[in-house]
């Protein structure tokens, strides 16, 4: 088991004072974005600008405020986000919060199911050589199948069996996120050193005692690292799960509607909302990690 897909390399050790470079890069991106909006929107705005007599102010006014732009300006996306989050009641279908909640609920269900499945598989693999040898190659192979491509079929088949709405989407999330958990947990459960395992042996500890008192505590840091990856791809799974069936609610449905009706600003707003959700979920897992590790007595 050399390296696993879907688990990115650990980020380089955090250097202090990244705020300035990050701000600078973000500002650069914003500048490039505003600049790019002018030529990219020219197809739509060109005739209007010429009709209005041109001039720099005319170009800027039209390029950055077009209703159906090829590339909306950042402030348009911000306005759309503000409008669909704060000015509409959260339970209305026009509210982005409503759609976020639909996606978030199936993400969370899939994440919990997938993590449990991942941990269970890892425990089985650690305790059985046969399972380790026979399951592991298939678990890796299962991830080379583009599961997101099968999502429509899973949803249609489950729908014809009477499962609709939340469950099929979360099954896709579950399938995606069990993998990093399994890989991480197998590593984590194997991480106790031989001397520690030998000590447990001299205590005549049973297999389950070794598992609960040594292997499981040792695997907690690995578990949280995998959970961060898992929660992010669970969200991706839920969003993609909403695409093929023409779901009427959820971030994926917003993307699809936006692409049908050419509502670019709506697509970008949904995209940003999905990104906020992903960042928030990963952050929450990080908080849980810090709290748990502190409780377990790990010095920061």
């Amino acid at each position, binding site marked *: 088991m050399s390296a696993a897909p879907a688990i990115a390399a650990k980020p380089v050790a955090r250097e202090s004072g990244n705020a300035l470079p990050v701000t600078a890069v973000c500002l650069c991106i914003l500048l490039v974005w505003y600049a790019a909006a002018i030529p990219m929107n020219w197809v739509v705005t060109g005739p209007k600008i010429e009709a209005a007599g041109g001039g720099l102010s005319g170009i800027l006014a039209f390029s950055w405020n077009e209703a159906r732009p090829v590339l909306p300006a950042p402030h348009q996306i911000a306005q759309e986000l503000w409008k669909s989050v704060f000015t509409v009641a959260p339970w209305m279908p026009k509210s982005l919060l409503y759609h976020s909640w639909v996606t978030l609920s199936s993400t969370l269900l899939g994440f919990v199911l997938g993590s449990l499945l991942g941990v269970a598989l890892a425990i089985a693999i650690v305790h059985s050589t046969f399972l380790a*040898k026979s399951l592991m190659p298939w678990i890796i192979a299962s991830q*080379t199948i583009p599961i997101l*491509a099968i999502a429509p*079929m899973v949803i249609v088949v489950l729908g014809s069996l009477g499962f609709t709405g939340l469950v099929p989407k979360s099954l896709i999330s579950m399938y995606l996120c069990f993998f990093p958990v399994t890989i991480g947990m197998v590593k984590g459960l194997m991480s106790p050193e031989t001397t520690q395992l030998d000590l447990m042996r001299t205590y005549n500890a049973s297999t389950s005692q070794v598992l609960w008192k040594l292997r499981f505590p040792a695997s907690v840091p690995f578990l949280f690292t995998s959970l961060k990856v898992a929660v992010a791809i669970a969200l991706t799974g839920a969003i993609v799960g909403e695409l093929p069936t023409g779901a009427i609610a959820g971030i994926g449905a917003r993307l699809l509607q936006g692409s049908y009706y050419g509502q670019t600003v709506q697509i970008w707003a*949904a995209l940003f909302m999905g*990104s906020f959700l992903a960042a928030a979920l990963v952050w929450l897992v990080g908080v849980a990690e810090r709290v748990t590790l502190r409780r377990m007595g790990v010095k920061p």
Partner: protein
Amino acid sequence: MIRSRITDILYPAVFGIGVLILWELIVRGFGVPAVLLPAPSGIWAKLIASLPILWVDFVQTVIRAVIPGWIIGSLSGFLVALLCDRIPFLRRGLLPLGNLVAALPIVGVAPILVMWFGFDWPSKAAMVVVMTFFPMLVNAVAGLQASGHLERDLMRSYGASWWQTLVKLRLPAAMPFIFNALKINSTLAMIGAIVAEFFGTPIVGMGFRISTEVGRLGLDMVWAEIAVAAITGSAFYGLLVFLERRVTFWHPSYRK
């Protein structure tokens, strides 16, 4: 040694064949309708019967979108990582963003890219480029910093230039990270190309075929497409593992 190698192949093979037989038995025994779950034998028959269609879809999705996109995305991610390596300010600014973006649901960009690059394969290739760029950037930056201080000091004492240090020390040391990214990208590329086809496509392509056949309840065709995708994905991944072993033979994880 030989015995363990045989069981390495035998166990998974037995397990896989067992699952296929169980699948066939369940479908036949309980009379599961083919619109829910076709039997493996039925899928195989369909696969053989519709090879020309599958080949056209394969060319559209894999040859035109996945492979060029994967190469361009990985290469540009690597080049930007080199740039980050030369300009530390850029690295400190880009890397936190790269880590953030790597966790985002990037597939959501698909409708925008389809709008920009049209329905045909360029938009799918662009999707693949976007999806593969960030994992390579993050991994390559980490890899370029993987060589130890002692080794770098040695290169310095030889009076080696930045370029020589890069080619002779730091690139080889970065190879495990780069291959890790290439492997992650191989699965991401397949996903990106197929998902982008949900948002509009000419009438060929694996994603197109899957979504239309699901609509027509032709599930044996869907499974045939999935089989092709799975075999392609595994072969792609296997090739990368093989290359990785050749290139990073010195790495501790390959020592006998």
